[in-house]
C-alpha cells in the first residue's frame, strides 16, 4: 500500500474544494453545461441514461480496507447500495445526484481516494497488474512506478486538455495481466544487461471503433528517464493529435498515420529537448516513493500447510484450484474473488459485500484488496493455512464462484441498462451466459476462455481482445451482435476476427454454446486453449458450425 503524505492529502483536499466550487457554479447557472462538461468529466462525472454516473479511481488497483469501506459508504449514502467495478480499475456509481457529488468526494478524500482524471481528455488513472508486488517472478513492484506516473499525470498543467483520453498501463511480469498492448502507453518493467531497471515502452494501442495493438517505440528507457520520455510522447501527441474528428483523435491514429518510425523520431527529438531536465528522477526521489509502499510483515511459513491437506471438501478444492494463485512469499497465496456469480451482472458489488470483504481483508490479507481489469477483486496476501476459513466466508458472501478465467468469468460493459451510448444490452447477455455455463465441471473441461461483451463500438467491455468477443450493434431498430474469436489481451495480444454476420439478441447464448462445442471437438488435446485452437485453425470451422443451422 502507498501511504499518502501531507502533500498528496493536501492536493486531494484542494481538488475537492475546487470541484465543490465548480458544482456550485453549475447549479447556479454560472457555468453552462458545455463549460461544465469537460470539468466534470475530469472528475469522473458522466451524465448517463438515468442519472449522473460517478467514476472513482483506484490507482493501479490497490485498495486498503478503509478505502473499500468508504466506497461502500458512498454506495450506501449517495447511491443505491452498490457499485460497479470496471475494466480500468475504477468503480462506478450509477445513481448519484450532482448536488451530492462534492460531499461524496470529500468523504473519499478522507481515506486518500479521488476521482481525478477518471474521465475526460486527459491522462487517465494509471492501471497495473492487479497482482503487482506479490506475483512471483516480477522484476520489481511496478506500483512504485505507477505511483510516480500517477502523481506526474494528476492535474498535469500541459496535458489536461489533450485531443482525447489517454491511458497508461504497467506490468513487471512476463505474463501480462494489465493488457498493456491495448493502452495508449504500455510500460513493461525490465532489467537490461547492465542490471539497470527501465521500461520497454509501447505506444498506440487501444480499442474502440478502430482497434490497434500497441507498438514498441523504444525497447529500453531507463527508470530515471521515464517521466521525461512519456512527457515527450504526450507533448508530440498534444500538438499533432487530430482534433478535427473525435474518432481519429486518439494517439493510436497519429501513430498509425505517421508510422511508428516517424512518430518515434519526433518523440526522440522532443525528448532530447527535455531529457536531463527537472523531470529526471534520481534515486532519492524513487526511494521516497518506494519507502511509502508499506509491505506486510509476513510470517515465516511454508507452502502447503497441514490445514490445507486436511480440508477435503470438494467445493473448497474446486474453488482453491480455480481462484488461488501462487505468491512470491512461501506459505502465502493470492486469492481472486469472483464478482461473476451465476445470473449476476459482472463486476457489481453491494455495499454490504464491500464492507464484509474489507473485514476479511483485515483478518486475512493485511488489510489490502486489489481490483483487476477483469472486474474481479483479489486478496493479495492470504496465508495458505487460512484458505479454508476464508473460503467459507467468501462463499457465504457470494464471491467464491470458482469461475475465474473460465467461460462464465465474463467482462461486460453496462450496455443499454445504464449507458447513453449503448446500442444493445450487455449485462443480460452476460447473465444468461453465466447460467448456461454454470456447471463447474463443464466449464473446467473447457478451460481458460475469456468472453467479453460491449454494448457498442466504444469497446468498454474489451470485446476485440476477448477470446470470444460480443459486440452489440443496431440494425433496423434491432439489437444484433457481432461475434469475434481469437482475440487476447495478454503478452500475445491480438484482435479477434469476425466469424460472420451479426446474430439477433435471442440467439447469442446459443451461438456461444455452438462455438464452445466446436472448440471441444476441434482441439487437438485438452490443454490446447480455445484461443490456440482458433489460431491454429482460423475462424472457418467455427463459422461453419455456427452458420450451418442458421
Amino acid at each position: 500500500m502507498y501511504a499518502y503524505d501531507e502533500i498528496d492529502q493536501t492536493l486531494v483536499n484542494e481538488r475537492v474544494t475546487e470541484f465543490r466550487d465548480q458544482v456550485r457554479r453549475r447549479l447556479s447557472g454560472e457555468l453552462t453545461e458545455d463549460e461544465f462538461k469537460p470539468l466534470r468529466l475530469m472528475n469522473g462525472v458522466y451524465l448517463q441514461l438515468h442519472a449522473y454516473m460517478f467514476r472513482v479511481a483506484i490507482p493501479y488497483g490497490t485498495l486498503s480496507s478503509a478505502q473499500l469501506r468508504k466506497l461502500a459508504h458512498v454506495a450506501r449514502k449517495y447511491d443505491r447500495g452498490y457499485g460497479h467495478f470496471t475494466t480500468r480499475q475504477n468503480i462506478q456509481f450509477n445513481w448519484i445526484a450532482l448536488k451530492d457529488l462534492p460531499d461524496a468526494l470529500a468523504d473519499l478524500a478522507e481515506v486518500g481516494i479521488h476521482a481525478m482524471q477518471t474521465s475526460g481528455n486527459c491522462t487517465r488513472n494509471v492501471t497495473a497488474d492487479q497482482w503487482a508486488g506479490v506475483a512471483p517472478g516480477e522484476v520489481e513492484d511496478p506500483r512504485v512506478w505507477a505511483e510516480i506516473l500517477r502523481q506526474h499525470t494528476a492535474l498535469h498543467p500541459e496535458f489536461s486538455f489533450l485531443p482525447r483520453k489517454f491511458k497508461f498501463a504497467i506490468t513487471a511480469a512476463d505474463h501480462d495481466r494489465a493488457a498493456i498492448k491495448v493502452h495508449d502507453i504500455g510500460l513493461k518493467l525490465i532489467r537490461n544487461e547492465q542490471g539497470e531497471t527501465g521500461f520497454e515502452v509501447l505506444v498506440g494501442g487501444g480499442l474502440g471503433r478502430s482497434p490497434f495493438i500497441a507498438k514498441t517505440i523504444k525497447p529500453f528507457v531507463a527508470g530515471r528517464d521515464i517521466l521525461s520520455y512519456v512527457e515527450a510522447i504526450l507533448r508530440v501527441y498534444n500538438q499533432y493529435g487530430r482534433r478535427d474528428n473525435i474518432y481519429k483523435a486518439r494517439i493510436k491514429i497519429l501513430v498509425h498515420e505517421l508510422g511508428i518510425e516517424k512518430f518515434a523520431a519526433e518523440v526522440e527529438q522532443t525528448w532530447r529537448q527535455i531529457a536531463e531536465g527537472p523531470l529526471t528522477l534520481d534515486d532519492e526521489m524513487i526511494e521516497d516513493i518506494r519507502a511509502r509502499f508499506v509491505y506486510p510483515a509476513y510470517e515465516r511459513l511454508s507452502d502447503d500447510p497441514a490445514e490445507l491437506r486436511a480440508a477435503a471438501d470438494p467445493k473448497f478444492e474446486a474453488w482453491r484450484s480455480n481462484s488461488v494463485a501462487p505468491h512470491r512469499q512461501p506459505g502465502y497465496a493470492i486469492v481472486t474473488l469472483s464478482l461473476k456469480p451465476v445470473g449476476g451482472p459482472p463486476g457489481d458489488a453491494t455495499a454490504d459485500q464491500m464492507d464484509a470483504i474489507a473485514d476479511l481483508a483485515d483478518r486475512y490479507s493485511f488489510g489490502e484488496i486489489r481490483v483487476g481489469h477483469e472486474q474481479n477483486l483479489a486478496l493479495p496476501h492470504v496465508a495458505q493455512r487460512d484458505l479454508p476459513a476464508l473460503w467459507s466466508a467468501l462463499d457465504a458472501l457470494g464471491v467464491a464462484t470458482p469461475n475465474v478465467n473460465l467461460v462464465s468469468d465474463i467482462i461486460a460493459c453496462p450496455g443499454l441498462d445504464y449507458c447513453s451510448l449503448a446500442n444493445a444490452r450487455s449485462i443480460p447477455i452476460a447473465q444468461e451466459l453465466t447460467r448456461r455455463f454454470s456447471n463447474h465441471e463443464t466449464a473446467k473441461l473447457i478451460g481458460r476462455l475469456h468472453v467479453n461483451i460491449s454494448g457498442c463500438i466504444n469497446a468498454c467491455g474489451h470485446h476485440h481482445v476477448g477470446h470470444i468477443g460480443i459486440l452489440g450493434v443496431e440494425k433496423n431498430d434491432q439489437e444484433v451482435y457481432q461475434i469475434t474469436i481469437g482475440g487476447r489481451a495478454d503478452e500475445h495480444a491480438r484482435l479477434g476476427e469476425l466469424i460472420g454476420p451479426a446474430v439477433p439478441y435471442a440467439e447469442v447464448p446459443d451461438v456461444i454454446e455452438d462455438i464452445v462445442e466446436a472448440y471441444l471437438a476441434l482441439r487437438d488435446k485438452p490443454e490446447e486453449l480455445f484461443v490456440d485452437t482458433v489460431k491454429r485453425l482460423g475462424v472457418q470451422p467455427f463459422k461453419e458450425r455456427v452458420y450451418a443451422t442458421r
Partner: protein
Amino acid sequence: MPLVKHGAIVADDYVAVADDADLPAGGAVLVSAARLFAEAETLAMRNTPVGVAWPNNRDVAGLVPWLDQLSLIALVFPTFKDGRAHSQGRRLREIYGYRGELRATGQVLRDQFTFLLRNGFDAFAVTKESDAQAFGEATHRYTEFYQPTGDGHLSALQLRKQRHKAVAT
C-alpha cells in the same frame, strides 16, 4: 474581454491590427504571424512593442528567430478543450527561453488559470468578467503540485527531497 495581468485586471496596451489595415503611427501593436514575417523590417523600425498572435496549429519553433524582438506572444484556445497552446507555452518558455508577455486568448475560463500559469502564461484575455474578478481566488486554490514546470514551484518529488535534506542536516 477583460485582460488580467500580474493578477489584476488591466487595460490592454496593444492594438490588434488586421492584416489589411494600416499600422497606427505609434503604440504597441499585435499582428498576425503572416504580417510579422512579411513586414519584419518596418515593424523593427517602429521602436514600439510588437506582439504576434500565433495560431495553435503552427510549430512555435518558427518564432525562434523573432523572440528577441517580440514583447508579446498571444496564443489561442479556440475552445478551452483545445489544449495545444498549453504545450506551445511551455516550449516557448522552457525550451526557447522566451521572456516577454505570454498571453492566453480565446475561450479562457477560470478553471484553466492555474494550468496556464504553470505553463508560463502571465496574461489572460478572460472570456467572462466574473472569472477575471475571481482570478486571485482561482489561482490560489492549489498549494501543492506534482509536476515541475518552469513556473518556479517545486514539484512534490523535489519538495520531499528537500525536506529529507533539511531533516538530515
